[in-house]
């Protein structure tokens, strides 16, 4: 029976899918198991995958650690502020370029695309010079501005696509009713583009939350380190608290994985600037 064969085929695909999922999750399972090991079990030979004693209190200990709380606070401040800045800057730019033709429009969009290709990594020496001379080393400002600038492009592409999909007639009707352009944007366009706004905001948040090289370079003061830089101090040449490092890592990863899943369907469009639809 072809129905039975098809069911068998689907089961085969599910099996392959399960193996694939396991392959991608396996390293993070090692992370979870290590995070739950007591200190003495970290240096057992031969190494064991799972803990003999599940020491879940490692997570509570990390959460109570004053240094961890500092890193968490820095990460939250930087990620939330650069998220807000991205939205504030991207909304008007995306709206105007979606609705109007003007001199310099192509040049502007080209510039945006180029910034998307350039991660701050290749410019880090120039960024450090700039912030060193402006005396902005170890300030939130420097980190927030950098994260916002390099994640602007994704937000502009996503928002443009949403704005462009709103029928002009709706906006024209509102304009006839005496709404100015800004009011039309705030009252009509933005509420209709909520998924786009959410996607742009989440993406900007995650990118700033995960950023490493600029934070490593600019934030040398222990009170100013975000999570990505801070957690690495659990494992150095002198101390090796792998369980604390991974407990902290899991606390940092889980929320962003959930957020990422929420915006999953818009990711490719935003990252490839509409070239693969």
């Amino acid at each position, binding site marked *: 029976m072809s129905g039975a064969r098809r069911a068998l085929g689907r089961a085969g695909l599910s099996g392959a899918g399960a193996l694939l999922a396991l392959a991608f999750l396996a390293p993070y399972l090692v992370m979870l198991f290590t995070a739950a090991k007591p200190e003495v079990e970290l240096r057992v030979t031969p190494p064991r995958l799972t803990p003999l004693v599940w020491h879940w209190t490692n997570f509570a200990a990390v959460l109570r650690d004053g240094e961890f709380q500092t890193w968490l606070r820095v990460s939250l401040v930087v990620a939330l502020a650069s998220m807000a800045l991205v939205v504030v800057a991207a909304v008007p730019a995306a709206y105007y370029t979606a609705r109007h033709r003007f001199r310099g*429009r192509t040049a502007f969009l080209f510039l945006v695309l180029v910034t998307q290709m350039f991660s701050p990594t290749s410019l880090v*020496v120039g960024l450090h010079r700039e912030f060193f001379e402006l005396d902005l080393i170890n300030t939130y400002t420097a980190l927030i501005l950098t994260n916002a600038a390099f994640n602007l492009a994704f937000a502009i592409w996503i928002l443009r696509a949403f704005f462009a999909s709103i029928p002009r007639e709706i906006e024209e009707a509102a304009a006839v009713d005496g709404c100015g352009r800004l009011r039309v944007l705030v009252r009509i366009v933005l509420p209709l583009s909520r998924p786009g706004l959410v996607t742009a905001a989440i993406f900007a948040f995650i990118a700033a939350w995960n950023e490493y*090289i600029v934070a490593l370079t600019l934030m040398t003061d222990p009170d100013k380190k975000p999570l990505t830089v801070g957690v690495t101090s659990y494992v150095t040449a002198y101390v090796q608290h792998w369980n604390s*490092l991974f407990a902290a890592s899991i606390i940092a990863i889980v929320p962003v994985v959930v957020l990422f899943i929420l915006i999953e369907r818009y990711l490719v469009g935003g990252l490839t600037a509409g070239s693969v*639809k």
Partner: protein
Amino acid sequence: MPGPRRTRRATDWQALLWLGPSLLLIGGVVLYPAARLVQASLSQYSVTGLYQGWVGLRNYARLLRQEALVTVAMNTVVWVAVIVVVTVLISLALAQLLDRRFPGRRLVRWALIVPWAASLIVTSKLFVWIYDYYFGILNPVLQSLGVLAQPVDWLGDDSTVMGAMIAVGVFVSLPFTSYVLLAGLQTIPADVYEAARVDGASAWRTYRSVTLPLLRPALLVAAVLNIIYVFNSFPIVWTLNDRNPGFGHDTMITYMYKIAFKSSLRDVGLAAALGVVNVALILVAVIVYLRTVRWREAEA
């Protein structure tokens, strides 16, 4: 302005207002540091970072004389080429699987998100632990599978460290690449496959002469974007190669970073010269990308 007609100039001014915040950000934090990078590459600095004057192209000449440069350039070529090729090949298969309907597909897609969403530095640290010679889980797993007779010091042995780093590079590049290729597959209309089936083409034949040609745009985008991302990648090499002295396993990005910021080296001018070279290489890739997607302007 009360009049219904606006002059050309007025519209341009308005555009500047609407684009202003974006332009300020890009100008201040992308273009200006790029200019400062070029300027720094033509200057000399003290170890504490103070400007000591203009030196013309001397930093570039010094860069060419660096003993490590050839090794680092070769490492970069291997790092980028192997990761991109292997990633694209594996992703072709993964995208094919994810394009089929089966129970649990959504969960598989979510599992694929994890390495993409997790910060690279955390994933890199995780692999340092997994690869660890004494306490890492990889050696006992491979030994119990009979793949290895003796444990290997993956990150300490000169012959295995690049391979170990490349494996992590592939692992974290797979999700994005698979998603792009999957998006490409989903643009191929079902009736094309139907036609091939009616013509009696085998599955492999259909894949080669129908799917792959239609997937070409997505493949090119995935490949070029990956070249840029992998070239720019920092945390993996920075972390996994951490305890090896010298520059034997560095890429041009980590080499630049060490010259600029390792306290024993601190040569801003030299690092900036290498930075300019890196930026120029990325620009070439960007131009190739724009050609690939035939970018004029995303139409409104």
